[in-house]
């Protein structure tokens, strides 16, 4: 079972968490200056890293907090979490 670390509750099984998708996606703007291509990229181009990926998770089965982690999509290793709203940790080195 994959283990994730909640900033408040510590290490727990993956089943206590909900995946919130890739993090660090910046909505382009202001809207009237955004090209169709940039907007389509924002809507449909998903971060899909084979390696360390910045992600958002929620501890739904626990304290309910949202946090960011780096997770390796090949090994399922995870970095230390940071709460949403705080600066993200540096991308881990391979």
């Amino acid at each position, binding site marked *: *079972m994959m283990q994730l670390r909640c900033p408040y509750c510590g290490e727990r*099984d*993956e089943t206590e968490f909900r*995946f919130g998708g890739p993090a660090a996606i910046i909505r382009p703007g202001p809207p009237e200056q955004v090209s169709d291509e940039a907007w389509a990229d924002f809507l449909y*181009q*998903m971060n899909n890293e084979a390696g360390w*990926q910045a992600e958002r998770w929620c501890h739904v089965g626990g304290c309910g907090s949202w946090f960011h982690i780096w997770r390796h*999509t090949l090994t399922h290793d995870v970095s230390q979490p940071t709460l949403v709203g705080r600066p993200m940790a540096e991308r881990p080195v391979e």
Partner: protein
Amino acid sequence: MFGTPWGRAWRKAEPKSHYDVVIIGGGGHGLATAFHLARDHGVRNIAVIEKGWLGGGNTGRNTTVVRSDYYYTTSSRFFDRSVKLYETLSKTLNFNIMFSQRGILNVFHHRDDRAGWLRLVNAMQLNGVNAELLDREQTLAYCPILNADPNARFPIQGAFLQEEGGTVRHDAVAWGYARAADAMGVDIIEECEVRAISRSANGNISGLTTTRGDISTGKVAVMAASGSDRLCEMAGFRLPVSHLTLQAFVSEPLKPVLDCVVASSGTGVYLSQSDKGGIVAGGSTDVFTSFARRGNFGTMESVLSGIVDFIPQFSRLKLLRQWSGTVDYTYDSSPIMGLSPVPGLYLNCCWGGGGFKAIPAGGETMAATIANDAPHSLIEAFSIDRFRTGALVDEAAAAGIEH
């Protein structure tokens, strides 16, 4: 021991320095495309190159279900064409693919689910695809092994049935297409990984660098399932795709107990019994992006508990194997097929959990697309352009679970 051993079904081809068309990916779609290019369009100088072994990706990992219960007319026309081609495929290929149209029963557990399925059944009937809605008694009569307890966690309220749906011997599809394509001169080259895709000064595809040497070609078709996005990056563009893990399970063999494919809309599990007697089962994808090609225990547990709730007799079944594949999903859960932003590069990928059922129609339409350098009418809507125009084919909700 009993006469002469079986001969090779296809040659072990060495890569030549030039091909008219190179198809990347030796799964069902790649082999079917090669077959149709050779048979219907007279293109004979074709290579199918495969990183691993033939049919070793999702073609050999799926749960072999074939159906066409799609909501939108565009999807319905395409997938129903595929079912029709499967019906005659054994004869077409002279290879028994064991298509068993045993019926697919999609069980619902709540009256609100019924409304959704009724909407789908109506849409299917309008699209000319046979489908019917069953009540609780009819459902239990059709598949008596289901949990009839009215106090079950997911009580059975009824089901929607597609009688033309069924299962296929998945390896036979790959082998049959491979043998038939090989007989027409198609080179099938295994253990040949693409390292680079080169383009000429005018932007056209000009060739490939592979682990078995350079190949010059003007037409490359990307049919590499979850490897497709990295191939497209080599050609200079990105695919709007996300990778997930999808698991499957097979049990020890039993006497015949389950004569249809049955799925639960409450738990997302689906089951069928193979001709060897094993119960083949699957469920939802794992819930987060992964390239690891191994299933996670959280999803495993929810699939297996769903099975036990659905068919309590299976609680003491022993699993023989569990495996997983990497499935590549787009935003609307529909595939990407047709031309690409790079001239000479064709796409047939992003099938998510639903590519197997589409193999014959995928091969037929992609062969026409490659031969004519214009999308076949059945796949126009699945163009990568829809992620620029916004004209999505949003089958995610309509086609049920992993489709």
